[in-house]
């Protein structure tokens, strides 16, 4: 199996701050994994993600994409090979669903028939009927449907890597569970690398083949959910797991 993403001693500090947002981090991801990156806000998880598609540049260290140092590529062209989904979705309100999904294919100048069939295929993949939704505008969709389109748009050019920054963070609990299941299916069918940032520990443990736990810019633990639960690496990870146990206790108490 090849390594799709590799961080080698990567750091990032923002102007006017004394702390590192990302503090000398190293890890690697095997192609085809779904990695969830878990941490509270301000822990550096989004910064880490945005350094991969170069919306941020690291201060030091090297990030490799299939062995290639990403800082050597043209960032704009490089981003077209990576799917990117954010919490606020960021659909283009002035374009139809069809046009939104076709953004990257159109930049890449695919021919019309190919774009058309790809758009339909993707709409079906994310559970939206093409006949009904193709010509709609984002404002005519619910939040959950918009994020489905966001997902389809990111998948359009069949990227080797998907970056998802709290994609379901603003979606109601029931829809979120459904979308999580569908994301798992999409990931399994695609066999691509997915990096999924979240602050929801249940989401992280449910989706991730491995979970990368971050706090104050550092990796606290990077392992499979099972190993993390049985073998928490430090006090921070333990307290994280405890928080879930306490919650579960509450559920049990109230149901019995």
């Amino acid at each position, binding site marked *: 199996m090849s390594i799709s993403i590799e961080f080698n001693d990567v750091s990032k500090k923002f102007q006017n701050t004394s702390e590192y947002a990302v503090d000398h981090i190293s890890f690697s991801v095997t192609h085809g994994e779904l990695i969830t990156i878990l941490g509270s806000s301000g822990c550096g998880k989004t910064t880490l993600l945005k350094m991969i598609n170069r919306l941020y540049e690291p201060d030091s260290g090297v990030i490799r994409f299939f062995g290639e140092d990403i800082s050597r590529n043209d960032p704009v062209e490089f981003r077209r090979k990576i799917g990117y989904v954010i919490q606020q979705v*960021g659909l283009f309100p002035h374009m139809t669903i069809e046009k939104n999904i076709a953004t990257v294919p159109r930049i890449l100048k695919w021919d019309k028939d190919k774009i058309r069939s790809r758009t339909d295929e993707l709409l079906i993949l994310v559970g939206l009927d093409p006949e009904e939704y193709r010509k709609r*505008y984002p404002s005519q969709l619910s939040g959950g449907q918009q994020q489905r389109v966001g997902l389809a748009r990111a998948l359009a050019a069949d990227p080797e890597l998907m970056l998802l920054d709290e994609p379901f963070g603003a979606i109601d609990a029931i829809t979120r569970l459904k979308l999580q299941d569908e994301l798992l299916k999409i990931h399994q069918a695609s066999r691509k690398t997915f990096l999924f940032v979240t602050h929801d520990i249940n989401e992280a443990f449910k989706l991730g083949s491995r979970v990368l736990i971050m706090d104050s810019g550092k990796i606290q633990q990077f392992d499979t959910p099972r190993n993390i639960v049985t073998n928490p690496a430090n006090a921070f990870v333990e307290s994280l797991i405890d928080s879930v146990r306490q919650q579960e206790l509450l559920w049990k108490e109230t149901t019995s």
Partner: protein
Amino acid sequence: MMEKIMEYFMNNMDSYLLAVRQHIWVSLLSVACALLIGVPFGILSTKNDRAYQLVTSVFNTFRIVPSLAVLILLIPVMGTGVKPAVVALVLLAIPPILINTALAYRSVPDSVVESARGMGMSDGQLFWKVRIPLSLPFIFTGLKTAAVEVIASATLATYIGGGGLGTIIFTGLGLNRTDLLLIGGLSVAVLAILVSGILNLLDRRILRYTHLGTSQ
């Protein structure tokens, strides 16, 4: 009264149409110039917070100056005729266009810009395919305000020799003839309503997505 108005049209149709044409031409030219200046500078002003604040407050203050004052102030600088009239009208039309453009450009959601960049849009694509189309509705509002203001104020341009429908009104004032006042005044009003109607229609055509009902 009706008879007098009919009589005017019977005898002066040519000069009436000339006045209308002049009025439209001066207004059109002024609004076009104002767009060419207001839109780029509106966008430029958003590049930096201080510039934006400065430009917005200066132009907002500028809007308070009565159009007649602007016209008359221009006489010593530019003399009389169509040219100073157009300059004055351009000055009048720039603020609504510029302020709306700047506001529109700033209110393009960050999330939309971020996802556009994240997908690999170049700066040019981001500008032409995202920022400009998303700014258009507000820019259009500015254009409508400017167009109506200019058509109304072009009446005053007669004062400094700019011609147009103001000629009929000022003649009416001079001769104390209500029929001429009515003809001139109503023509300007009809023209303004017509133009704003056309722009509204265009607005609905081009910017269809802003007129959809929101989520079901």
